[in-house]
Structure formats: C-alpha cells, structure tokens
C-alpha cells in the first residue's frame, strides 16, 4: 500500500470533489429553456439559428436526438413533461395524438401559418377535429443520386439502379419500408399497398449483384461516395442538397419517370410541454423564410412547406428547380402510415432478401 504516492483515501476524495464540481457545470433545467427532440443536424440545431432565436425571445434551446423514428416514439412515451418541441414524420402524428403524447397547437400563434402550402398544412395526417396537432415544416423525396464524374448523362429511369453496367457500385439503405417502396415504384405498383409482393421481392433480390454495401446515415453515404464505393445510390433530396453544397461532392439528385417516394415532416408540441408558448414561437421561427432560406442556402435542406420561403430560394436550388416543379411533384407517391402487421411483414421480407445476399 505504501507504493502509492498519495494515499488511496485522499485520491478518492479528490476525485469525488472534482466530480461534484464538474457535474455542477452541466446545464440544469432552467426557466428560459426550450427542449427539442429531433434528428441531429436536421435544421433545428443550427448554431446561427439558435443564436438568432435567443436574441429574439431570450429562450435557450437544448436538444436531444434520436436515430430512428421508433426511438423517437419511445423517448416521447417515457419522458412526459420533458420535451417541448418534437419533430415527427407525418405518418406518426395521428398515432401520437391518439395516445395523448402531443397537444393541439394554437395556430393563431404561428404568424407564418397562412403561407404554408394548404395540401401539407391541412393534411388529415396533421389535423383532427379541426385541430392542428402538427405544423407542417419540410417535405422531401427519396430517390437516388449519382456521381456526375463517374456516370455521364443523367439517368431518367429508376432502372439505373439495376443497370448491370453499375454492378457492384450501387448504394442502398438498409431499411425495410424504403426498400419495398423503391421496388414497388420500379415494378410500377402503388408503393403503399403493392398488389404483387412476390414481384417486389424478386426485384429486390435482383439487387444482389448491384449493391456494394448499405449505408444508414448521410455521413456514411458521403464517405462511400467520396471513396468511390458508390457511383449511384438511393438518397434523400435534402441530404443530396447538403452533400452537394456543404460536402462539395459532384452528385445530382434524380426524380425518374417512375416516380419517387414523398414524405413530409411536422413540428409538434408535446403534451405537458414545460413551455408551450415558447414551443409555438420556435415552430413559427422554423417555418419562417428568414430561417429557411438561410438554412437551405448555407447548409442544404429539404423543401419548405412554406411556399413563400421556397420561392425565395435561388433559381437553381434543388428545392426550387426540381421539387418546385409541378411535373415532378405529379410523379411523387406519398408515404402513408403502415399497419403493425404490414411493418412486420416488410421486415421479414427484407430480412429474407438480405439473407439471400449473404449466401
């Protein structure tokens, strides 16, 4: 024991004291704070935006993140009274409202409300009994993007992903729902209720020679594209804008003639939110052109539900040129909520396909 230079007891005391000091420096649950639950790097946590918001309202915004939508639901369910603002994909909003997880929003508090695209703003996915349970925020497409340096000439068909000349260079996301929807588009079916699931499965199995590896985050997509693992890959429109602008990758997003998967997100206020008024102010800020235009220009974002904000983007911005094009929007199939049974079935089919890949 005498081999220690300082005695064990004083060492422990030192550590305890220092630990107490350190822990005290962590932010406490203070008034003047707003808690937001969202994907990381998805707009609401932009440093400059939070500073602007603090200047306007004096509220400091603190974030918690999720990495899957199921996890978002779990966190909300097990943390009553903790969150103020929660981002939700439209297909979950009614479910959450039905469980009493979110509260109706007083739309008179949202100054930008009138400028929101009506089809999104008043969508039955957000509105029940005349009450808005979410404010539509952004929308985007899932399709694919390609490396303009590796592939010459923009592909106009989703079959490009199955093109043998791109064998071993295709990127795909490991997600059951998305995969089945893409295959449904490729086989000309309704992606929310494909009539012929065998055809969908066969189409997915045909990817075996095509896929190089799966990606599960924007970061991985960027790294694999940059390293040359991918020449063409399934991707989201907002992320494609970011990869091109912020990461400077030579990629272009494509909405082929078969169509693309459309999704839209809304911002909700949690039931028992500590600061519902502050939450409404934050949501209002998020749908304002002031925030949105700068977000898309500097970082890259999905399309805004605020038509006015979208119109203020530069002409060649992806969100204005492609997603703002009515011809393109006509080809979009919008995601619908999925029943538990269907979700389970999808997962099984996808697991079977993946098992087939490994043999």
């Amino acid at each position, binding site marked *: 024991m005498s*081999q*220690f*230079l300082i005695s064990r007891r004083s060492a*422990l005391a030192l*550590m305890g004291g*220092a*630990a107490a000091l*350190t*822990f005290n*420096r*962590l*932010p406490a649950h203070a008034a003047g704070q707003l*808690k937001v*639950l969202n*994907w*990381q*790097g*998805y707009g609401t946590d932009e440093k400059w935006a939070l500073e602007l918001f603090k200047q306007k309202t004096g509220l400091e915004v*603190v*974030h*918690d*993140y999720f*990495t899957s939508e199921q996890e978002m639901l*779990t966190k909300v369910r*097990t*943390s009553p009274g*903790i*969150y103020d603002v929660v981002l939700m994909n439209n297909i979950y909003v009614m479910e959450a409202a039905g469980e009493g997880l979110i509260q109706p929003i007083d739309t008179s508090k949202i100054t930008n409300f009138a400028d929101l695209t009506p089809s999104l703003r008043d969508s039955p996915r957000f509105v029940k009994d005349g009450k808005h349970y979410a404010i539509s925020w952004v929308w985007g497409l899932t399709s694919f993007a390609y490396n303009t340096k590796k592939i010459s000439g923009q592909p106009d068909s989703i079959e490009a992903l199955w093109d043998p000349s791109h064998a071993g260079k295709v990127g795909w996301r490991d997600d059951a729902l998305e995969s089945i929807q893409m295959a449904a588009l490729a086989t000309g079916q309704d992606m929310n209720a494909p009539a012929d699931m065998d055809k969908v499965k066969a189409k997915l199995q045909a990817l075996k020679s095509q896929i190089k590896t799966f990606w*599960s*985050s*924007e*970061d*991985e997509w*960027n*790294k694999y594209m*940059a*390293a040359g693992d991918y020449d063409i890959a399934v991707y989201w429109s907002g992320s494609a804008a970011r990869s091109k602008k912020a*990461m400077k990758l030579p990629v272009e997003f494509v909405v082929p003639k078969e169509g693309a998967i459309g999704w839209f997100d809304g911002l909700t206020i949690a039931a028992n939110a500590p600061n519902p008024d502050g939450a409404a102010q934050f949501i209002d800020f998020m749908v304002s052109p002031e925030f949105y235009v700068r977000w898309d220009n500097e970082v890259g974002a999905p399309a805004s539900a605020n038509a006015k904000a979208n119109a203020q983007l530069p002409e060649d911005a992806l969100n204005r040129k492609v997603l703002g094009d009515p011809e393109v929007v006509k080809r979009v199939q919008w995601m619908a909520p999925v029943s538990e049974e269907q979700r389970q079935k999808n997962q099984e089919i996808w697991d079977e396909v993946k098992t087939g890949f490994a043999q």
Partner: protein
Amino acid sequence: MGRIVKPYLGVVLAFLYLPIGVMILMAFNRSALYELPFTFDLVWFKALLSNQRLMQASWNSVWIATINAVIATILGTFAAYAFARFEFRAKRVLQLLLFPPITIPWLIIGTSMLIFFFWTGIGRGLHAILLGHVALSLPYVVVVVGARLASFGPQLEEAAATLGATPMQVFLRVTVPVLAPGIVAAALFAFAVSFDQFVISYFLAPPGTSTLPVEIYTAIRKGFTPEINAISSIIILVSMGLMLIVARLYKFGGDQA
C-alpha cells in the same frame, strides 16, 4: 523460443495499432470525408477547441468511467472472491446470472432499463447512467479477477492463516497484492466498458447532457467530422501518458514471492 517472442509481440502490437494509427492520421488530414491524398492540417483540432458540446461530453465520459471503474471493481472483486474461495449451492445460478448483461444485445438492455427506470421513478440522468454502466462492467470484473484467483489457489492465504493472521489481515496483506494485476486489469476493462458504452448512456442521458460515445454515434446521422478523430487521438495520447505515470508509481505484475 525466447527469441521469437519479441518480434511476435511486435507484430501483434502492430496489428492492434494499425487502425489507431490511421485514426490519428486522419485527425490531421484536411478532408472531412477521410479522402486521400493526405494534406496536413490542424483544422479539426482548432474546431475541437470551440466545440463545447464535444469537450463537455468527453469530460463527462471520463468521470463516469472512473467512478464506474472504482465501484465495479470493488463490488466485482468481492463477488469473485466469494466464488473462488467458497462452495455454496447458489453459486452456479449466480455465475449464470453474469451472462445476460454480456449476451443480450445492449439495445434490448437499454430499452428495458429505460422502461423499468421510468416505471420505478428512477428516471433518466447521470445516476441512471452510472447504475447501468456498473451493471454492465460487473461481469467483466468478476470474470477477470476470478481467473486470477483460480490460477493462484488458496495456498498462500491458508499459509498466512496458519501463521496466525486474521481473515482481514490475510485479505489485505496476502490476497489483494496477489490479486493486484487482476484487479488493475479488471478496473481498466471496467473503465473501457463505460468509456465506450453508447447504448445505455444514450437511452438514459437527460436532454442536454451527453457522453462522448453518444456524441459520436448521434453525429453519424449528420456526418461526424474528424473532430471526433481529433478528440479520440487526444484521449489515446493522454491515456498513454497517464498509464506510463501509473506504471512508474505502482509496480504490478511483478515478482511472486
């Protein structure tokens, strides 16, 4: 026989440090996407200095891991000692109960902890994280210290007892020094388990506080810049320094009597 040992160990160490070397190298590379060719740049270290969130998270990780190591090592060593020196009926069951924390995917443990802590009012927070980390470290401590105890056998302790030492004296003067390398290794494992533990911290952390693995894993959604490499490199180099100091102060793994 002796002559191939050093080269062999060298090869093994080279293997172990190959990705670490790459990781440190990329911390100094300008590209945000690990692109080559390599261009030397300190941009990520500079970015790290202004990244309060990441620094605070790393600091939290270090403290949690340290406290975790202390608690887990003490609790686990006692349990391991009981297993090694006593025979009792419940022993088999208790040993089997060490399996679940290691076998069951941490995602399940994390989810069930979240639910259970929610139901019982323990809630989320640093205390919850610590509760979880110690539980996950315990099997490692018990197994490692147990291996040491099994290899040593009770002869020395019995000898000391026949010479008139009390059980407490036997424990402090004979058992613990003999166990020392095992205890130190177990503590280092426990520290590592906690320091790199993502899932539990992720589920149980209150909004606004974070640990380093959580920062890294959640950042993959957006893109973790090589600031992560920078902080990881700093941690490795600081740990190396600390370890060398510990090695100087405390000679372990040394000679048996």
